[in-house]
């Protein structure tokens, strides 16, 4: 059981452990250690509205309701997990909350380019423009066959680039030898993920510990942009960048740019609105066009149901496939109900 020295009668949450309240339960998001913990909503209240009360007065307050054992257990848990520390009343003001503002120097931080057999993208051109916009993460989605030879040529264009992460999805050409995959990746270590879809086999290849790349094979066929927008606890990510970005911005579309398989510039290839075609429109012109940045500001706090969900700042989002196509409605491919705290099949 927990002991405190007598003069430390107050507690404070470490600033990077942020409680998030949902309809039926809350989370403590430990941003520093990238883990989260469920807590009951009454503990959320203690940690927020009653945070300035001394521990003794809190215990006394709940004594009346015969709950002080529960409160002691709460504190024991919070202290053991290092979510809180004890301090004097004077020290409280020395520990401000974490600033949750988000910003980035790049006009575009991430981009998707879709490619199928009829695409006519001018890659050198596109990459130059992305470079100018400061893009850091790029996803290339090949819906139809491409040889590793042709892919290598595209990747080589990014030998020198501000892009730090490249994700590639392509159909499994079949009969791949490990060495072929490895030599593709070593061509450009920016490749962070390579996923061979439409594969006859599922295997994980992560045996090369000195390579930073995740290589995977999936039997699912990704033949167009509709294979996206899935919300799952697998994709939850707890980090200061996503957590702060999610406070005011959309966790999928903010500072994103997409070029669909026909060359149309969009927020997301699955969305209807287009802002010109790369053949005739510069990417920077499209971004500056009226409406392009509108979805960037749709934060989870503005989305029905999501705004009542305890996962809202660690969850990804989707604005292309939403319930009843409402732009402020919950992602269609989310199976979680924050009211009953249940995931449905």
């Amino acid at each position, binding site marked *: *059981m927990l002991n405190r020295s007598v003069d430390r009668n107050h507690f404070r949450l*470490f*600033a990077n452990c942020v409680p998030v309240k949902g309809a039926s339960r809350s989370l403590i998001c430990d941003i520093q250690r990238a883990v989260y913990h469920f807590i009951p909503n009454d503990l959320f209240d203690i940690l927020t509205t009653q945070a300035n009360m001394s521990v003794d007065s809190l215990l006394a307050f709940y004594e009346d309701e015969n709950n002080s054992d529960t409160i002691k257990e709460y504190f024991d848990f919070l*202290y053991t997990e290092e979510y809180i520390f004890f301090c004097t009343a004077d020290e409280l003001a020395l520990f401000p909350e974490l*600033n949750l503002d988000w910003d980035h120097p790049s006009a575009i931080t991430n981009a998707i380019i879709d490619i199928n057999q009829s695409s006519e993208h001018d890659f050198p051109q596109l990459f130059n423009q992305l470079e100018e916009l400061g893009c850091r993460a790029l996803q290339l989605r090949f819906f139809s066959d491409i040889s590793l030879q042709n892919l290598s040529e595209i990747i080589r264009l990014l030998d020198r680039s501000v892009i730090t992460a490249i994700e590639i999805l392509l159909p499994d050409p079949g009969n791949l030898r490990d060495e072929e995959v490895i030599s593709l990746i070593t061509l450009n270590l920016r490749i962070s993920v390579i996923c061979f879809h439409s594969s006859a086999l599922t295997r994980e290849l992560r045996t090369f510990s000195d390579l930073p790349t995740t290589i995977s094979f999936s039997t699912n066929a990704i033949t167009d942009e509709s294979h996206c927008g899935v919300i799952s606890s697998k994709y939850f990510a707890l980090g*200061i960048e996503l957590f702060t970005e999610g406070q005011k911005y959309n966790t999928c579309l903010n500072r994103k740019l997409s070029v669909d398989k026909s060359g149309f510039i969009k927020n997301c290839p699955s969305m209807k609105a287009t802002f010109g075609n790369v053949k005739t429109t510069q990417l920077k012109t499209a971004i500056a066009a009226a409406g392009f940045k509108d979805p960037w500001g749709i934060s989870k706090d503005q989305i029905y149901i999501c705004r009542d969900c305890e996962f809202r700042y660690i969850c990804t989002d989707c604005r292309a496939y939403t319930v009843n196509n409402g732009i402020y409605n919950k992602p269609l491919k989310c199976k979680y109900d924050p009211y009953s705290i249940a995931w449905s099949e």
Partner: protein
Amino acid sequence: MEIADQCRMLLRVGDQEIDINEIEAFWHRNGHITIDFPATLISDDFPYKKDLFSHFRNEKRKTSEYLHHQFRKKKSLGNYFQADLNKLIALEQARALSIPVPPTLVTTSKKTLVSFLTKYGKAICKPISDALMLTDIDEGTVAYYTNVLTDENVNSLGDHFPLSLFQQRIIKKYELRIFYLDGEFYSMAIFSQSDEQTMVDFRKYNHRKPNRTVPYSLPPDIQDKLRQLMKQLDLNIGSIDMAVTPENEYVFFEVNPVGQFGMTSFPCNYYLEKKIAQYLAQTI
């Protein structure tokens, strides 16, 4: 470089030519400007070779100093001339401003060290200059920064040893990493769990958890003193190491004039890179 009726200075970087008069802002983060000399052919048996090369190096150093002198006239951050700040001078100046500093001893004598230990209890040992990195392909890397001096260490010493710096070991409630930028402080508290006063069930403590690092509001009186210190050291940017003791004393350890800010900025979400960019972009 021409210092005459008209001062002209041109720098060639790769195939780019930069007119120094056109530079508006300058940030000395770390390092030096290397000036290329045309290859000088001196035959190996030339007897004055060593001295001559050393002379060339000095010629370059002075030229580089003059460049930095020019840069400092612009909107500038960092101070090339203070980059190699003397820790002992910084300690003395802090003390003069009545900022508590750990009792410090520089000696080569075991006898002196032992009486220091008798007076101040446990001590740490750290370099007077920079951290030492010894690298050998086969042996690996050995780094020497701050170490706690054990009884065993002291016993193994001969009567005399190479010049060493000792400081009383300060009990820390939490450590502070403070980034100073143009009069403002961006501080982070590190809970290094060295606080024996916290009565916890230590068996439950998981040592693999990284120390908590959270934003900290430096009290205004400490800010005032540190601001004076930075002014005296002629620094408008730097990283300050301090600790808060269980008695709430703010103890100063050192200031690093070429300190990194990422380790404070990222966990505390201070966006120091943006603040630095804004500072440099302000028109003079």
